[in-house]
């Protein structure tokens, strides 16, 4: 059964005024814009989580898109990846981690 919701406009307005008053009081006491600061921190946090996930996906994609010839085995592919990641230290480290995780998953 769906419950009917009773929305109170005066209640909402009171809540909003109390919220603004609390923010102003905190700003006065601490000298910082708390709400906008919090929003900025939350926004940046979400942004960073998303970009880190995208970077990880892109790294996996890069490995998947390395051309593999029919008669080549995994050592050739590793050698190819190794050659192409010269001067790219962070990416090389990520590839090593990915490959290690893959080997561990296979042996498990």
């Amino acid at each position, binding site marked *: 059964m769906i419950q009917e919701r009773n929305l109170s406009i005066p209640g909402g307005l009171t809540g909003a005024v109390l919220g603004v008053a609390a923010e102003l009081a905190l700003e006065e006491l601490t000298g910082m814009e708390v709400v906008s600061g919090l929003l900025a921190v939350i926004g940046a946090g979400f942004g960073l989580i998303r*970009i880190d996930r*995208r*970077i990880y996906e*892109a790294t996996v994609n*890069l490995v998947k898109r390395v051309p593999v010839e029919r008669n080549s085995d995994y050592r050739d592919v590793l050698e*190819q990846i190794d050659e192409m990641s010269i*001067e790219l230290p*962070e*990416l090389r480290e990520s590839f090593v981690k990915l490959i290690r995780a893959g080997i561990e998953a296979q042996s498990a």
Partner: protein
Amino acid sequence: MVGLNSLFKLFRKTFAPKVEDRGFLPRLYYLHRALEALDEDDIDAAVRMITLAGLDKKKGPRWRMVCQQIIFRCRVLISLHQKQMDQINTELEIFGKTEDLRNLYLRLQEVENKARDILKNYELQLLEQLSESTASVVQPS
């Protein structure tokens, strides 16, 4: 949060592409765009976006990582073009007896060469930016 996300998506699809070349949007936006371009193998756009992301000289670890991904993809594509060149050269020797076919192979060669040179340029350009960022990490001002 869902509303905010939709608002950002709308911004990214409508307003942002018109002003992104000016370089004043947040760095994360440019990194996302660079990764999108990389997924589509649009190396020109990826290089443009990563350069814009590094305009403020604060090239952090995420910037370095995306930059290295683009360089890696450039190298993979260069190797593919090199293989195509080898294939064309072999076929030119075997089938390039008539002038028409010979001209066709030579034109293909030219296209492959041009593509490889463009990618090489991008690679060098990004390697330079990457070494600048390494220098700034090693010698903090």
